[in-house]
């Protein structure tokens, strides 16, 4: 990853603050986990896991989703109690009955899913994380100091509901730093940041390391880990499989340790004809968000051709949900011709009428949106297919047809499950994702709109899903992929557009794009490039 260089002055400012002399040279472990085991029902999330973190080190905890990383750090932070094993702090066994005890030792944690309170102000959010009973005005003052010192600007009186995702993460980090932690745990912190924001975060983390603090950095992004961390512990299926210095490893070797098997690359033919007719056209779409905390769409234009995969990149919360709703028909567009499907204006049509026009949709949230958690897979086949799959006869539901459909999806997409027709929540993330993607692809749609197709699924499932999207497009269908995973978009998309604060950039062919350019677009920079060319035609 290339530096943008904007963070150098901040670094110097930080170094002056709170440096702890002598800590960096010490090689006594700061925290050790010994044979930690934690079960959830029959699932062993952590199986005798050992972990050693030294002061002045950025230690990576690598693993796929579901490998047990979050469980391990929740035990270190006192959120989960281990079933077996113990935790040592500076060599002495400690009990961590709750996060307050962990914080008292000097452990701070930044959560993957933020633990913020939207309705409260920044200062109130910070005060809640502090263990002393300081008046709010005093908290706000300290907050200003620390955020200035680390170059993480924050306005104490603002309501959190008005902040961007990046700013929210800043609150999380600042409120940890205000407790002067000796171990800072970050759970997948970069999944919501632009590449440039990531670089800023890495600079902050290096500063913390140089101050003698330890950082436990959870990620599954290999390049990041190689650039940032001095040590790594790799988890697979709840067990430690490897310890290494990631700087001496290649991304491929780290990936092998993490996944255990070789993951096949997505196969795609070099020559793809993407000059087919326009299948989906969105023109000048303005759509106020139904969610008061959401992002309204402003003048969105896009064209999607037959046989093409168009990627929409962007940091979460920039209008992706609204765009998906507008294209799928979950939200009604203000004009019928704002969304045109195969030449027909469908802006006022509901999702099922668009499905009957051979469109198919996969939303981001597997459980609760794409699938009803407590319903069986066959009933979940009915969720998306009651209008278009012939599951009804004479007004009555045909259970056997739905079951047959489940069987077809299962075999075509390698959905692994125990019983024939389990509840959706009983499937693992990867298998459920294969089901909800397969449920749509098996219909052979002409248009597939899919959001975060491989978010939080294991590498094998991700590879299979991406391959199936590519195959679908090669068969002549149009595919729109809305994703925050740039690697994914670079791997499968023909063109990529970026969504930022509800506006969509022009779409550029992938081979003309660099990661940095996309990163700038994701942060709203590069205004010259962000001018959509399509406006001329509109």
């Amino acid at each position, binding site marked *: 990853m290339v530096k943008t260089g904007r963070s150098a002055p901040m670094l110097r400012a930080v170094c002056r603050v709170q440096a702890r002399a002598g800590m960096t040279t010490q090689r006594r472990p700061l925290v050790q986990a*010994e*044979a930690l085991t934690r079960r*959830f*029902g*029959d699932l062993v999330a952590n199986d*005798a896991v*050992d972990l050693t973190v030294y002061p002045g080190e950025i230690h990576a905890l690598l693993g796929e989703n579901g490998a047990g990383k979050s469980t391990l750090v929740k035990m270190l932070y006192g959120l989960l*109690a*281990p*079933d*077996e*094993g*113990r*935790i040592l702090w500076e060599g002495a*066994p*400690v*009990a961590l*009955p709750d996060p307050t005890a962990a914080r008292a030792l000097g452990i701070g944690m930044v959560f993957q899913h933020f633990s913020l309170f939207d309705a409260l102000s920044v200062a109130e959010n910070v005060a809640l994380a502090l263990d002393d009973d300081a008046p709010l005005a005093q908290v706000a003052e300290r907050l200003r100091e620390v955020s200035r010192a680390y170059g993480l600007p924050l306005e104490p009186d603002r309501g959190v509901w008005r902040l961007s995702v990046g700013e929210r993460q800043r609150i999380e980090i600042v409120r940890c730093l205000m407790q002067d932690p000796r171990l800072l745990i970050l759970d997948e912190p970069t999944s919501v940041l632009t590449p440039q924001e990531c670089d800023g975060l890495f600079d902050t983390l290096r500063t913390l390391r140089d101050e003698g603090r330890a950082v436990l950095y959870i990620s599954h992004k290999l390049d990041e880990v190689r650039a940032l961390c001095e040590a790594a512990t790799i988890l697979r299926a709840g067990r430690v499989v490897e310890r290494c210095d990631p700087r001496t490893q290649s991304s491929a070797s780290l990936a092998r340790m993490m996944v255990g098997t070789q993951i096949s690359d997505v196969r795609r033919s070099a020559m793809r004809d993407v000059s087919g007719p326009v299948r989906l056209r969105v023109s000048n779409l303005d759509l106020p968000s139904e969610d008061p905390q959401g992002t309204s769409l402003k003048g969105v234009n896009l064209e999607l051709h037959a046989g093409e995969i168009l990627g929409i990149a962007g940091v979460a919360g920039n209008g992706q949900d609204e765009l998906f709703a507008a294209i*799928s*028909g*979950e939200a009604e567009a203000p004009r019928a011709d704002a969304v045109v499907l195969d030449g027909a204006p469908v802006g006022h049509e*509901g*999702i*099922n009428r668009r*499905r009957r026009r051979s469109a198919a*949709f996969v*939303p981001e*949230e597997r459980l*609760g*949106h*794409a*699938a*009803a*958690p*407590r*319903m069986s897979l066959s*009933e979940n086949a*009915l*969720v*998306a297919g*009651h*209008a278009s799959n012939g599951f*009804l006869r004479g*007004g*009555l*539901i045909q259970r056997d047809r739905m079951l047959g459909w489940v069987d077809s999806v299962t075999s075509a997409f390698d959905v692994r499950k125990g019983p024939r027709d389990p509840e959706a929540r009983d499937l693992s993330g990867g298998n459920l994702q294969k089901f909800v993607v397969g449920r749509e692809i098996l219909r052979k749609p002409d248009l597939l709109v899919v959001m975060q197709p491989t978010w939080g699924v294991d590498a094998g499932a991700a590879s299979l899903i991406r391959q199936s999207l590519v195959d679908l497009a090669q068969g002549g269908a149009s595919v729109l992929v809305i994703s925050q995973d740039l690697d994914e978009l670079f791997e499968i998309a023909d063109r990529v557009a970026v969504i930022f604060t509800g506006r969509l950039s022009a779409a550029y062919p992938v081979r003309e794009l660099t990661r940095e350019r996309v990163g700038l677009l994701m942060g709203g920079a590069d205004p010259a490039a962000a001018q959509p060319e399509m406006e001329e035609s509109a």
Partner: protein
Amino acid sequence: MRLTMERRAEGGKWALLLSPLLAVVLTLVSSVVIFWLLGQDPLRALSVYFWQPVSDAYGLQEVAVKATPLVLIAVGLALCFRSNNWNIGAEGQFLIGAICGGGVAVWAHGWGGAWVLPLMLVAGALGGMAYALIPAILKARLRVNEILVSLMLVYVADLFMDYLVRGPWRDPMGFNMPQTVSFGPEATLPLLFTGGRMNIGSVIALAVVVAFALVMARTLKGFEIRLVGQAPRAARFAGFSDTRLTITVFAISGALAGLAGVIEASGTVRQLLPGFSPGYGFTAIIVAFLGRLNPVGCLIAGVFIAITFIGGENAQIILRLPRDMTLVFQGMLLFYILACDTLILYRLRVVRPVDPGATPAPGVRS
């Protein structure tokens, strides 16, 4: 040491049946204790409450008479509760149904023909439906809390009934008693057997149960109701509109409550008077939950609750227990159902804290 809840791997169908049964058993055990505390002979009291009502043919007919409105209302409420629409004003819809149907009877008294009875039934159902649509439309349009609106309307309906039977609809020959005329034969539901009060209404209730069992299990509408309740966002993804469904289920549930009201008026009470309902609309809430929000379940639960209803009336006379005792049992029963649901779907696990000083167990690699 602390308790945690874990979902049982096999929730299974048996749990769905076991939970209400267990709740009934726990309620019986608790009532034995309460009877004993009140200085009653528990066995005798149990027999009054649960056995005497079903010990003869007349008693069985009475059970059917009481179960009919309970089952009708509960089936409708089950649809509402399943889809997260909290209609707790069925009592009001029941009364309005009785008023609308009864109004036809009062109006046609002495000159109406065979058309009176069908017209009454339709008027009652429509009246209940219209009354239920008030909270439904306010919820769908403005997201006004349907619990409070539907409940407030119960008091309004109660006062309206009171006004009618003391005012414009009072029986002129009734010695100034606050009640309407006794309905003529053209406005009374035919009895099924002689020597009892069981009437066609019970057959209607049975037909409603069968129809809605089919709707819930086999039709898209039934699926929609379940999906909206369980996963509202997935329901939207399926193209279902939750506001339209709110209107639909309230309309159905209001119509069924109204139908129950007019059946009670024309089949059982045969006039309108204050205190017309012994709280069927509220008791039906318990019936719906005890019946697992399932139409057939509501039928079984309705019969059981009807027995305790009669038992409560008998106990008032025989044991001189306050009639409110029945409410105590009903509240207790609902508590037990809700508790059993949790206990059967989840397993309580006692977790002992790990001793931080303990060394890892031998055989574990370190």
